[in-house]
């Protein structure tokens, strides 16, 4: 079994080593540890508890037998730009200065990984420990030339930053986008991360982002995933927030053959709060797996999670959320909710909402429910002259609205609403 696992990882390493760029922004110690971990542990299969419902090993074996890394160049991303936002473009894992907007905003510093100073280099990999997860290790070993984004202390950015991750390949490929985002003390920013896949061939995106929110900082982040049939991705967000800080994320997944989101938030100081929201719709043979961890390390913090899924055809939805309250984290308030609707007889939903609690003065709860479209509600609408199909649409829309409403960037919200309605 072990030999078999190693093979997948080894195969990937062999195939992408030749074309991979030099990773000189991460120190050698971490790089060798990453390779070691990868070779020893392999790509996780469903025997791995964290990947029980998301057999990535099988996906690589089935869909990425012939990784050739023929990556396309992109010359234009006009169609994907938002009107009132600053756009940063990452093509196949590498930051593209020519496609990105010129940064002339006060307090916003963007440095590509190739020109980092010593302090910034040290920050890379502090939240994403290469020895905890195979995909963190894989990304570390073959990291794309990403960027370091810093919002200076006391700066409140008025316009959102739109980071567009475009992948496009002429053969099966694996790309490893990576970034570091740092919100300074008392700083505020809104960041939209959008993932698209536009080539003719399948691309596996192994995304990794480390996000730091300093004291009293506020980060509103939106993740929008719409990669289509050729998109396979594992997306890891490692977030750490400090005293009085606030972190908000809303993840909308509309398409992608495989989407696995690892969203790990460390509430590292007192009085901070984190909110994670998610909405996904799946069809055909898709698999969307949302994996979250709220790591309450200190007292008086608050966390909230709301994930909703609409699962159709032969697709599978997964929600695995863990609230982890450490010994000292008294007065923790943590809530988690997962609601799902199954639309087809062949659809599957697996949920695993976990609580792991070592402090007694806490209020923690979770709830999850799964059902079909409420027949009584459909009848109510039928009785008022609304046909079955429209009634279903209306009800699903209402179901999704709770999450979509969390988006405060109007342009993005409208875009997602339109696409969501088309999906139905």
């Amino acid at each position, binding site marked *: 079994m072990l030999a078999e696992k190693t093979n997948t990882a080894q195969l990937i390493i062999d195939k992408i080593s030749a074309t991979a760029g030099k990773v000189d922004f991460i120190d050698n110690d971490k790089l060798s540890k990453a390779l070691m971990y990868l070779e020893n542990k392999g790509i996780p299969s469903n025997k791995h*508890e964290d990947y029980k419902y998301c057999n990535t090993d099988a996906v690589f074996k089935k869909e990425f037998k012939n990784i050739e890394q023929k990556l396309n160049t992109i010359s234009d991303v006009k169609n994907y730009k938002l009107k009132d936002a600053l756009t940063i473009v990452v093509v196949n894992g590498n930051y593209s200065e020519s496609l990105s907007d010129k940064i002339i905003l006060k307090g916003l510093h963007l440095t590509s990984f190739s020109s980092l100073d010593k302090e910034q280099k040290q920050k890379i990999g502090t939240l994403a420990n290469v020895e905890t997860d195979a995909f963190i290790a894989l990304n570390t070993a073959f990291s794309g030339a990403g960027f370091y984004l810093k919002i200076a202390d006391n700066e409140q950015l008025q316009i959102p930053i739109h980071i567009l991750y475009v992948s496009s390949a002429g053969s099966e490929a694996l790309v490893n986008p990576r970034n570091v985002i740092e919100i300074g003390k008392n700083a505020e920013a809104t960041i939209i991360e959008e993932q698209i896949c536009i080539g003719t061939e399948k691309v596996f995106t192994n995304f990794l982002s480390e996000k730091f929110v300093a004291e009293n900082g506020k980060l509103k982040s939106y993740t929008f995933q719409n990669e289509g049939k050729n998109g396979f991705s594992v997306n890891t967000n490692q977030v750490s927030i400090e005293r009085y800080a606030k972190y908000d994320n809303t993840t909308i997944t509309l398409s992608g053959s495989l989407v696995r989101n690892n969203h790990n938030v460390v509430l590292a100081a007192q009085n901070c709060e984190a909110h994670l929201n998610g909405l996904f719709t799946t069809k055909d043979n898709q698999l969307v797996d949302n994996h979250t961890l709220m790591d309450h390390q200190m007292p008086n913090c608050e966390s909230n999670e709301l994930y909703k899924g609409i699962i159709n055809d032969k697709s599978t939805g997964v929600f695995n959320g863990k609230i982890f309250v450490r*010994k000292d984290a*008294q007065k923790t308030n943590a809530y988690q909710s997962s609601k*799902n609707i*199954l*639309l*087809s*007889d*062949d*659809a*599957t*939903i*697996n*949920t*695993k*909402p*976990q*609580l*792991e*609690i*070592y*402090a*007694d*003065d*806490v*209020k*923690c*709860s*979770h*709830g*999850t*429910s*799964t*059902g*079909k479209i409420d027949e009584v509600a459909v009848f109510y609408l039928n009785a008022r002259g609304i046909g079955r199909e429209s009634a279903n649409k209306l009800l699903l829309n209402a179901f999704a609205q709770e999450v979509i409403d969390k988006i405060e960037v109007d342009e993005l919200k409208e875009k997602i609403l339109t696409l969501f309605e088309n999906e139905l």
Partner: protein
Amino acid sequence: MANEILEEHINKDYEFGFTTNIDSDTFAPGLNEAVVTALSKKKNEPEWLLEFRLKAFRHWLTLPEPNNWAHLNYPKINYQDISYYSAPKKKPELKSLDEVDPELLKTFEKLGISLEEQKRLSGVQSNIAVDAVFDSVSVKTTFRETLSEKGIIFCSFSEAVLEFPDLIKKYMGTVVPYTDNYFAALNSAVFSDGSFCYIPKGVRCPMELSTYFRINATGTGQFERTLIVADEGSYVSYLEGCTAPQRDENQLHAAIVEIIAHKDAEVKYSTVQNWYPGDKNGKGGIFNFVTKRGICLEDNSKISWTQVETGSAITWKYPSVILKGNNSVGEFYSVALTNNMQEADTGTKMIHIGKNTRSTIISKGISAGFSNNSYRGLVQIRKGATNSRNFSQCDSLLMGDKCGAHTFPYIEIKDKTAVVEHEATTSKIGEDQLFYCKQRGIDNEKAIGLIVNGYCKEVLNKLPMEFAVEAQKLLAVSLEGSVG
């Protein structure tokens, strides 16, 4: 204040920690095919059963020891250090209670199961029929004759093997095959005794059936097996209780319980588990690794598990129901209390296969001291299990800041008509609740008792009368002044 009270409770001793000095016939420690064969010989077992044991043993050898997937921490068990058979030196065939070793009877009296009493009351009023299992063998089954008039078979497993081999052959291992897991394989190889119960068609068992398990000898493990078969339209309520003496060593208890419910049958299985939990430093105590599973084989059947778990150093137990028949019902009600260094990883599995199947899970965990208490459960709705319904509720109560309470529910749904709900909360006893009671002249300790009892009520209500009283007392003893 809280600490003082906690302290007081931590110093509380285990009240069933006595040993009984009776001659026993015990195997030397060790496990190999010769031991399995000798065990089988000792019990005059037929060839097919020996073969079953050996198959299980060979399979067990191929299995890796479970790695720590459960939220438990315990030292490696040396399976060669355990004696796999210990029996009170018995005279062949006991005809009446007078022939039972008086020391044994005293033990049961101490435990509050007076076999004498039962005997005396027989015929006067309906009571509980008891099968008492002492170390590895069943010592006496009461009321056997009364039950057999109705066609009910209730006897020790060894007797059943000899007297009703067809029934045993037909049902044993059908719900928990020896390949199921590490401890099930071990039990299948070395099980010593246990209870067998068969309720014939259309019979409603007139009394509660009960098994009491007691580990007495040192250096032994207990491996019993219970098999309950409820034929068409029958009903039985079954109780199980367990205690063990106080010892510095860890003793292993690995049991299997299988329940089969035919068409329209109903089985209610209640457990009050109070094995020795170890002392306050975590020394000694029973390692309790139990595989319990029932199958609602045919339509409209029902299996209900109720458990009150207060003992054992380590509890690893997931009473499950396979809902195969249409319209079948599975229930799981549990109160698990851990204190000091105890660790429990317990829960249930509800596997929905038939149409219109329903299951309910109510789990209440209470952790105090340095203990860890986990709920681990699976609700699986298979494809084709249309209109299935599950409701799960797992609440945890934490007492003190050094313990842990965890919830690991797995929910897998493959049918769109299923409605599944799960909710869990973790909290401590509210200051306002305590204040409310105190304001009305109820002191701290009583108030805590009141609140905890209320917290567990949903589950305790499901226990048969005789057991409910015992369970309430047990909770009170285990909890005395432990909340802060």
